[in-house]
């Protein structure tokens, strides 16, 4: 009976002969999947580099000129800003299809305030961003309180806001006033062939892209190094479990809708500063879809629980490169959609395959 009263059972548990996570992949196919899933951003970066090389040769060296790059980076910036905001939402398992209308609305209000009431652009921009954040609150509350799927909620607010902005001034584009240093800070116009690389004009031509890089870096930090980021992932990965352990999943979702709205407004304002024009139709739903495509290509799952901010910026670069590069090498503008469609499908298949592989290797 001495043995029976031994106070401690076997020293360790869980130590099985096969250690988890160390299991070697079985086939080359699995090996490739493992590498792609582990180095998500790196693998999409490789794709981006291949595209750049292809277009550089295809266009007789015209791709890598500051003139052309400023166009690609401008588009990357605009798309990336929206894509990265969608990444946060997609990680929580939600999506925002209304961002294009916020993209149009915020700068329109900014310009109207400036023209009609003499409000400085900087103040108007702030008001525009706050407006975008409030749209996020609306989307978020309807989604979490009334349990309407965000896919539907945001289609509703998309039409609502698009209708409002078109109705305000009979869908007239307005010429936006130019104020310094506001326009210099948020990017006024594109790099011209006669500009010296170190001119004031040349530097400001890239500011929209630099803002996006800043925003992406900030969200990457939030996602991987803050409690909010952790709880965002928890919400999308296992919402019941997250609630059980005390994560305020509803709040987390609303906050991420607010981020998406604010970023969309900011992107719209930058766009208006660049073109000195506020167009009620500046953001089309197509812009939103391209941003979501950029996020998916960058390695964010539509299923929630995982995603990468940096990947979405690279994804935005790939989309912008495809859009502009194909035109430059002489393809019809619409052909880029074919490539984009294929890229999205491949990225989604990869996402799903990686998830299945993880599930299979679990036990």
């Amino acid at each position, binding site marked *: *009976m001495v043995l*029976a*009263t*031994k*106070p*401690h*059972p*076997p*020293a*360790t*548990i*869980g*130590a*099985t002969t096969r*250690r*988890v*996570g*160390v299991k070697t992949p079985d086939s080359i196919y699995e090996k490739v999947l493992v590498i792609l899933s582990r180095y998500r951003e790196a693998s999409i970066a490789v794709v981006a580099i291949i595209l750049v090389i292809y277009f550089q040769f295809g266009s007789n060296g015209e791709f890598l000129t500051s003139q052309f790059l400023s166009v690609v980076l401008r588009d990357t910036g605009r798309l990336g800003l929206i894509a990265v905001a969608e990444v946060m939402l997609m990680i929580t398992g939600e999506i925002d299809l209304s961002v294009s209308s916020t993209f149009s609305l915020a700068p329109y209000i900014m310009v109207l305030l400036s023209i009609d009431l003499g409000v400085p652009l900087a103040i108007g921009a702030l008001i525009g961003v706050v407006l975008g954040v409030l749209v996020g609150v609306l989307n978020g509350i309807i989604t979490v309180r009334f349990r309407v799927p965000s896919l539907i909620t945001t289609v509703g607010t998309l039409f609502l806001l698009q209708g409002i902005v078109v109705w305000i001034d009979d869908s007239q584009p307005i010429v936006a006033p130019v104020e310094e240093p506001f326009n210099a800070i948020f990017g006024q116009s594109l790099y011209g062939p006669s500009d010296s690389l170190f001119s004031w004009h040349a530097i400001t031509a890239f500011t929209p892209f630099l803002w996006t890089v800043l925003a992406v870096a900030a969200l990457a*930090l939030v996602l991987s*190094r*803050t*409690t909010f980021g*952790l709880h965002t*992932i*928890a919400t*999308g*990965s*296992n919402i*019941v*479990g*997250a*609630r*059980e*352990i*005390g*994560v*305020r999943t509803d709040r987390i979702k609303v906050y991420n809708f607010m981020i998406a709205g604010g970023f969309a407004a900011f992107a719209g304002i930058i766009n208006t500063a660049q073109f000195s024009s506020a167009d009620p139709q500046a953001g089309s739903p197509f812009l939103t879809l391209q941003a979501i495509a950029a996020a998916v290509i960058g390695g964010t799952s539509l299923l929630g*629980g*995982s995603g990468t901010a940096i990947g979405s910026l690279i994804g935005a670069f790939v989309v912008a490169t495809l859009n502009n590069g194909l035109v430059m090498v002489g393809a019809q503008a619409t052909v880029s959609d074919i490539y984009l469609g294929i890229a999205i499908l491949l990225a989604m298949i990869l996402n799903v395959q990686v998830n299945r592989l*993880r*599930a299979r*290797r*679990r*036990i």
Partner: protein
Amino acid sequence: MSPAVIPPLAPDAPVILEMSHISKGFGAVTALVDVSIKLRQGEVLALVGDNGAGKSTLIKILSGYHQPDTGTIVSKGKQVHFNSPRDARAIGIETVYQDLALIGDLSIYHNMFMGREYHKRVLGLKLLDNKKMRDLAEVHLKTLGISIPSVNSTVDLLSGGQRQCVAVARSIYASPTILILDEPLAALGVRESAHVLGLIQSLRQQRNVSIILIVHNYNQIFEVCDRINFLHSGEIVLDAATSETSEEELIRIVKSGLGRNAVAAESAETEPGQA
């Protein structure tokens, strides 16, 4: 591990938790009807009953996940209201849920500290102190004798048993005053079960933490529990010290689907007929 080594709970051990007249329904389904339970300092209370009896619902009310339709919870003499699991955790109630509440996409150490993350200030920003959490998680798991490949690996790479161990480890990390374990042995092998039971037994020996344990195996109940509450169709039909009841009585009550008194009355009625 024979029960003899642990002295019975002192008769004057104070009641630290009382749930009184708790009812809860989900739409048309009535999950709990006027349930009252008492938990004393250092006690290990077994909550038993068939699937669907309402065990998980009851402990989810105590953990703050559900709010009761009626009834009160009194903790250490004070009435408490839990609007969320955060409130319950804040006063030292930790729960291992039946579904474990682990986040598959996050690392083991992030799961361990979910809801009580450590931070550090970097350039004025409040960032996660991942190194600290990683180290603490590693030490904690080692102390408990739980072996996992690395605290960095994500939870969805773990086996069912390993996950259960991680969830149990998380629940006792902050030295709770009340520990709720909802079928913590379900996915465990014989050896792992013995280990977790040993863990419960050593917590019981110290009598610092009160435990509510949901298990189906009667051997395990009689091995580690001081008291049994039997839940049937949302009602408590038996509340007895393990020393005052037996497996046979439990089985009789399960079969009848009625309470102890009802079973006793029934057999008193049938006896003359048989004679």
